[in-house]
Each structure stands twice: as C-alpha cells, then as structure tokens.
C-alpha cells in the first residue's frame, strides 16, 4: 500500500484521517512482506536454474530411462496431488495451478520422448494426443483463465498446424475447414454450461475465448479480403466451400448461444457471432477491393460496438471504438499513399490521426457502459 496514495486520497477528501489510519493499521497487520518474498523468490529461482543447468550439462550422461522415469514420476505425483485435492472448494487457485503444471508436464513429455528416441513428428500429432489425454481432465476440473487459455491455445495451434500440413489430397476442404472451425465450439459450450456448472468462471472464460476466435477469424478474413480476390484463382472453389463451412459453424454457434442465454449479454454475443458469419459470407463476392474490405471490417466492428452497448460490455465497447479508429487511420493511408511523402501530407496525416484518436476517446468515454461486475462480460 502506497503511503503517498493514502495521503493524496486524504487530501482530496476521498477518505478521512480516521479511515486512512485504519487502512494503515490493517495493512500493517495483513500486508505481505514484499521484500522478503522477493528475496525468497530470487533464491528459489536461482536454485531452480542451477538444478536445470546441472541436469542440462549432464543430459547425455543421464540414462534415457532415468530421465523419462523422473519426468513420469513428476507427472504421477501431480496426478496424485490433483486426486487428493479433488474438491477443495475453498482454494480453487491451488487446483488450477496444479492442473496447469500437470498439463505442461504432459505436453513436454512428448517432446522428451522424441528427443530420447530420436523421433520427429509434425506438431499437430503430439498436440492432438495431448488434447485427447488431458482435454477431459481440463474440462472436468478447470477453474479459470490459465487452463482455459491453455486448452484453447493447444487446440488452435493443433488445428492450424494440421490444416497447413494436410493442404493437399482428397477431401482437402473438409480437412482444412472443419478442424479450423473446431475452436468455435467453446462459445456455445461455455454458454450452455456456465449456468449449470459450479465452475462458472472457467466456462465463461472458454465461451469468451471461442467468441474471440470467431470474431478474430472473421476480422482477419475481412482484412485479407481488402487485398485479395477470393473468387479468382485456382483454389477459389475450395475457398468458397471453406467460407460456407465456417459461416455455417458460426451460425450454429450463434443459434445455440441465443437459446442458452436469454439475457441481454447472451443475445448480444449471439448477434456478434451471427454477424461474423454474415461478414464471412460477404467476403466471398466482395473481396478484392481495398475500400469494400475496410467497410466489411468496420461493419463487423460497428456491430461489436453496438452489441457491447446492448450487452453492457464496457471493455469490449472501448476495444471496438479503438479498432474502428485504427482501421480508419490505416484506410486513410491506404487510399492516399503519398500522405507520407510531403511535408504537408505528414502534417495532414498527423492532424487526421489526432482527430480520429480524440473522437474515438470521446466516444469511448461518453457512451461506454458503466463498469459492471465481471460476470457481465460476454
């Protein structure tokens, strides 16, 4: 607790001298000895680094069986601790941290196996194996953002690595578009399970991640549509099929979310998902034009901003305004590329950026929904 802050608050009349004194007393009793913790942390870190470097320096001299055995023993110990902690409802973070470590140990075990037995395989294979082996556990026991993010991260890397790896061959569209649509599943899944599970926090994070994947994918495609014409070229039929499949996945996700969450926030999330699907469909005929690509992108994010108002998502609204402003700035440079080649151009560009930034800041402050409980996020 900063003494300076306390004094500033007291001077501004936010708190009175009595309160300030009580805060000081409480902090003195309950404050954490940060310096001591930092010293302990540095010591532990140095011991850990030393251990790692001793092991690394003698890596070749440690028999494969011992190395892998120690790794596996760590995994077993983490599994035992997780079993022992099964229903520690008071300390969900302990379980979350342990689960994360267990998953990380499992993922590195694949790499360790490859190194010990000199085998190599494309990245998606160990990642898929990890998803099959650890996915059920994470879905059953995950408590919050770290494991949700890990699950989403592994899935996204696995499906995109697979999609790139298996580019040619029979059923290439299905093998490309179906896996890459898969992370979207988390949006409706989280929407359905956040009310029926005790682990609301975890399912909400997963829903947000799925939502972000869909919105991000549509945004990316709208950006690409600004400079590439999807309906031309040898692989354009495949592109059309992939877009149709993705859009269908987005619409299904939107429909399930709409049914599962009748509250304004749920309705808004479903609308954004459906809007992303519609934008995807529009990129097919409209791609290849800078301005239209930018308009598609801005239409999507205008919808995001509007729905953020309806769903009372303060952070998302401000993000939408910022993204729109940035796209506008980029568009002005795209349309007039000699803005940077003359003195007047530079001055004009600077003024334009200032005006857009000021306008965006004014909109974001004036119209943003009030700060709400975190539960109200999409």
């Amino acid at each position, binding site marked *: 607790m900063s003494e300076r802050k306390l004094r500033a608050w007291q001077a501004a009349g936010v708190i009175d001298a009595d309160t300030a004194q009580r805060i000081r007393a409480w902090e003195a009793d309950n404050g954490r000895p940060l310096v001591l913790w930092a010293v302990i942390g540095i010591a532990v870190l140095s011991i850990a680094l030393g251990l790692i470097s001793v092991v*690394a*320096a003698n*890596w*070749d001299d440690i028999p494969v069986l011992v190395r*892998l055995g120690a790794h*596996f023993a760590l*995994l*077993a110990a983490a*599994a035992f601790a*997780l*079993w022992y902690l*099964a229903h520690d409802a008071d300390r969900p973070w302990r379980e979350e941290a342990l689960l994360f470590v*267990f998953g990380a140990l*499992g993922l590195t*075990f*694949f*790499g360790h*196996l*490859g*190194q010990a*037995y*000199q*085998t*190599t395989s494309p990245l998606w294979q160990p990642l898929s*194996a990890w998803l*099959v*082996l*650890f996915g*059920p*556990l994470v879905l*059953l*026991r995950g408590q919050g953002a770290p494991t949700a993010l890990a699950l989403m991260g592994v899935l996204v890397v696995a499906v995109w690595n697979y999609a790139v790896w298996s580019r040619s061959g029979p059923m290439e569209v299905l093998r490309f578009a179906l896996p890459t649509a898969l992370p979207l599943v988390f949006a409706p899944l989280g929407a359905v399970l956040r009310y029926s599970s005790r682990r609301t926090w975890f399912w909400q994070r997963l829903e947000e991640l799925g939502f972000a994947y869909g919105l991000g994918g549509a945004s990316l495609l709208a950006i690409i549509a600004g400079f590439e014409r999807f309906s031309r070229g040898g692989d354009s039929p495949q592109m059309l099929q992939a877009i149709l499949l993705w859009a269908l996945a987005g619409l299904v996700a939107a429909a399930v979310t709409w049914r599962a969450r009748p509250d304004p926030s749920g309705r808004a999330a479903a609308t954004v998902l459906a809007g992303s699907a519609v934008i995807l469909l529009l990129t097919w005929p409209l791609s290849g034009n800078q301005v239209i690509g930018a308009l598609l992108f801005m239409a999507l994010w205008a919808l995001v901003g509007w729905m953020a108002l309806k769903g009372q998502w303060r952070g998302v609204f401000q993000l939408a305004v910022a993204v729109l402003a940035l796209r506008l700035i980029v568009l002005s440079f795209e349309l007039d590329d000699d803005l940077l080649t003359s003195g007047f151009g530079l001055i004009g560009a600077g003024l334009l950026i200032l005006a857009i930034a000021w306008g965006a800041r004014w909109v974001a402050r004036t119209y943003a929904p009030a700060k709400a409980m975190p539960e109200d996020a999409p």
Partner: protein
Amino acid sequence: MNRALLHVAALALPLLGLGASWLTTARASRQGTEWEVPVNGYDPRDFLQGHYVMFRYDWPGLERGSGQAQDLCLEGRAPRIERVQPAAAACRYRIAVATGPWGGRLYASQDSALRMQQQLVDPKQQGVLRFRLRPDGRIVPLGLTFRPRPAEPAVTR
C-alpha cells in the same frame, strides 16, 4: 456414471496414455535394420527446442530432387547402402516419404552438437549417419561419425 469414478478416470487417462506412448516408442526404436549414409549438416542448435544437429542425407545413386513425392527404396546389405531409388511396388527396405527422407535431426548435448557442427562444415571430413530404418519406414538417427573426405572437388552445399 459415478462422478468420483469419472474424475479418477480423467486423471488416469493421461498417465496411461503417456505410458503407452512411451512403451510403443521405446519398442519401435529397437526394431528395424541399421544403415549408414553420408550427410551434410546445417543449423546446429535451436534454443527453443533443445540441442540437435540438422543434416541432409546424401543418398548414393539419387539426384537431389528426384522422386520428391515418392517413397524411397534402399538397396544393399546393411549397413552398406548400394544405392537408393524411388520405390517400386516390391521393396524390402522402404523409406516412407511422409517421414521426410531428405533430411533429419539428431538430438545431442550442447557440447557435442557444437563439435559435430564444426566437423560437418570442415571440407576435409565427411559425416556419416548411422540410422535405424524401422519397419514402418521411419528413419531413426542413431549417431554421427566422421571420416576423412576423399580428395575430390568440394561438394557444393
């Protein structure tokens, strides 16, 4: 299904799966025939993925770039390779194209990876890779040795 049982099963699944993966990898690494092939190396280390030497195989009798999308067939008496050519239907020692028959990597400690890299770029030395060809067509590198390169025009890399 009983909820407690479900949790135990979800915990046991990773351990069983990783254990089975370990067993099968260990068993597969003992199968197959051992061969030797000259190699050219590049890019010794990658700090993110651990230490290893990367190399390209110099298959005897095969032009680089020929038969790119095809399985390869080894001919000869192990460990000596007589020649390598694109695989016909019947082939005793087949290298699966999906496993990358053009180059590979050998994991090694930091010191030996550095040493091997220096030897690989030395024009007077020829690296020879001992590898095991598994029945499924995968190449498992075993070790890298060096012998004096015969006096001939330097191999372009």
